[in-house]
């Protein structure tokens, strides 16, 4: 059955009973239709109930759910065609970031995104979705390539952070991220950023500057992971749940704070419960947003992008 979060357990348990009852009905030729329907309605209600009042920490857990669709899972479902392009032309290829060109609904787009792995070998290959500088540089190279031909950028964000390691520092992790912020601010094509899982810190923002920034319903985005925040401010990484609450890191929090432009709904039960349905909603959203952004002339697009970030934050004077 795979990975189950604590708060998912009552639903999973109910689903198991439904399956058992179906098997029983089939094998014994019993008439249990009414009973099954009653249980299914109950499961649906329960799921809606649980998912309508998720805590921030539960959303963090959903954003990290091992069955949650990753960048390539979405690309497979939403693209007419896609060709991955590798390497930063300077040091190497970073499998923690995917970059390439393709079509969505007939529209040519550049796609960049963090990539996590699902089994242990894949996890290691993808470095758990934690990029090195060459990943950010590859993404920028491909975005600029697309921009040369007027192709809009779709960026899918899902990272626990940029990798903190010796090689990463030697090759200028900070410079690579800073350069991307700078260059993405002035890229003369529409940039649509979607947080599809975890949005941790500069590692997320490094491919996350755009005209429209949307978050899927069960994702988080903040300046540091809840564990990192707890380790520093509470001096106890175990206080992550408290830190998650304090940091206001969910889609609805950030919409209210003016950090993001919209929230993309997920199927009830989360994107991992029904990846096809999640991808369908994502594709519809992308096409709608692209239509709106494509109507804006590039110089105005860039001017408004810089101005949008200029308005962010709160202060008094």
């Amino acid at each position: 059955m795979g990975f189950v979060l604590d708060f998912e357990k009552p639903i999973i348990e109910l689903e198991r009973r439904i399956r058992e009852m179906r098997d029983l009905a089939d094998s014994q030729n019993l008439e249990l239709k009414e009973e099954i329907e009653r249980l299914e309605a109950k499961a649906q209600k329960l799921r809606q109930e649980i998912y309508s009042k998720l805590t921030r920490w539960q959303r963090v857990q959903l954003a990290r759910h091992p069955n949650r669709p990753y960048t390539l899972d979405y690309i497979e479902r939403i693209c007419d065609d896609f060709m991955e392009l590798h390497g930063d032309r300077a040091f190497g290829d970073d499998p923690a970031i995917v970059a390439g060109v393709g079509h969505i609904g007939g529209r040519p787009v550049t796609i960049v995104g963090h990539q996590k792995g699902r089994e242990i070998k894949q996890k290691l290959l993808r470095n758990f979705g934690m990029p090195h500088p060459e990943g950010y540089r590859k993404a920028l190279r491909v975005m600029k390539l697309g921009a040369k031909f007027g192709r809009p950028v779709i960026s899918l964000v899902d990272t626990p952070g940029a990798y903190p390691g010796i090689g990463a520092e030697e090759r200028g992790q900070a410079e690579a991220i800073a350069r991307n912020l700078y260059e993405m601010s002035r890229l003369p094509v529409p940039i649509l950023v979607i947080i599809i899982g975890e949005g941790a810190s500069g590692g997320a923002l490094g491919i996350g500057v755009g005209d429209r920034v949307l978050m899927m319903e069960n994702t988080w985005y903040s300046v540091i992971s809840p564990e990192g925040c707890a380790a520093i401010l509470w001096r106890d990484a175990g206080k992550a749940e408290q830190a998650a609450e304090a940091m206001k890191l969910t889609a609805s929090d950030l919409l209210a704070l003016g950090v993001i432009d919209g929230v993309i709904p997920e199927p009830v039960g989360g994107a991992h419960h029904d990846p096809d349905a999640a991808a369908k909603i994502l594709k519809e959203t992308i096409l709608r947003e692209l239509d709106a952004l494509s109507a804006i002339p590039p110089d105005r697009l860039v001017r408004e992008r810089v101005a949008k970030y200029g308005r962010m934050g709160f202060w008094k004077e």
Partner: protein
Amino acid sequence: MSWFRRTQKGLVAQQKKDLPDGMWLKCEKCREIIYRRDLEENYFVCRFCGFHFRIRAYDYVRLLADEGSFEEFNQHLESVDPLGFRDSKRYSDRLKEAKNSTGMNEAIVTGTARVEGIPYVLGVMDFAFIGGSMGSVVGEKVARAIDRAIELRYPLVIVSASGGARMQEGALSLMQMAKTSARLTLLSEARLPYISVLTHPTTGGVTASYAMLGDVILAEPGALIGFAGPRVIQQTIRQELPEGFQTAEFLLQHGFVDAVVPRKELKARIAQLLRFFGFTPVQQAGEPSFACPEVERQ
């Protein structure tokens, strides 16, 4: 009246790296005993080993601005607590304490000044204010400093010292990285130079935004500069970090800073660069005029 007396025996952890009071000081690096007045005269650099003591924002202003030329702007911008953040302390209380202990409103000071007669916009961060962390106000003051430079057609110099983006403002702090980096594209479009000076320590979100985006990047000797802090890296990779890792000299070696410049030479180097970019001293009323010196030829 206890302000002139040390109220605590020993130093509390938070102040450990800041300059202690007293006539005689011990160098953190070579352990030599230094007379305070000597240290002051030597720009708070140990004359035995060259260790750069951490100094405050207004010390850099005195160091890098011609006497009496600094005019601060946006000093009244103050942080609010947009998330209602609370860990062991309320963020609003932390802000109050930082204001009281530093006498500053935020972790950066910005203004116009002159360096060897050349007018410019200067921003200096102060690590003593919540670890020099960048929240909405630091980001906004940097953005406005860029705007002022564009408006006056002045070059921009920012001296960084920061632990990174401020956690207590969550994603709003993160967005200041985008805000400042985006605004720097306008400075570049206006063909105005930006010199970034990195001091000990410059890490996290500040390094990963405006600190690494200088047209020229200078660093003080021995300064810790990086994206992730050394402790985080060590916990992640579970091995010893190489000697000199993430120092200014390490960044120089790997091609990420243009020059490591001792504090004593910082002002002259900045003026030298600004002259190269075509900026000349202005004559102020009642001041002697002097021409732009020729670039030295070997």
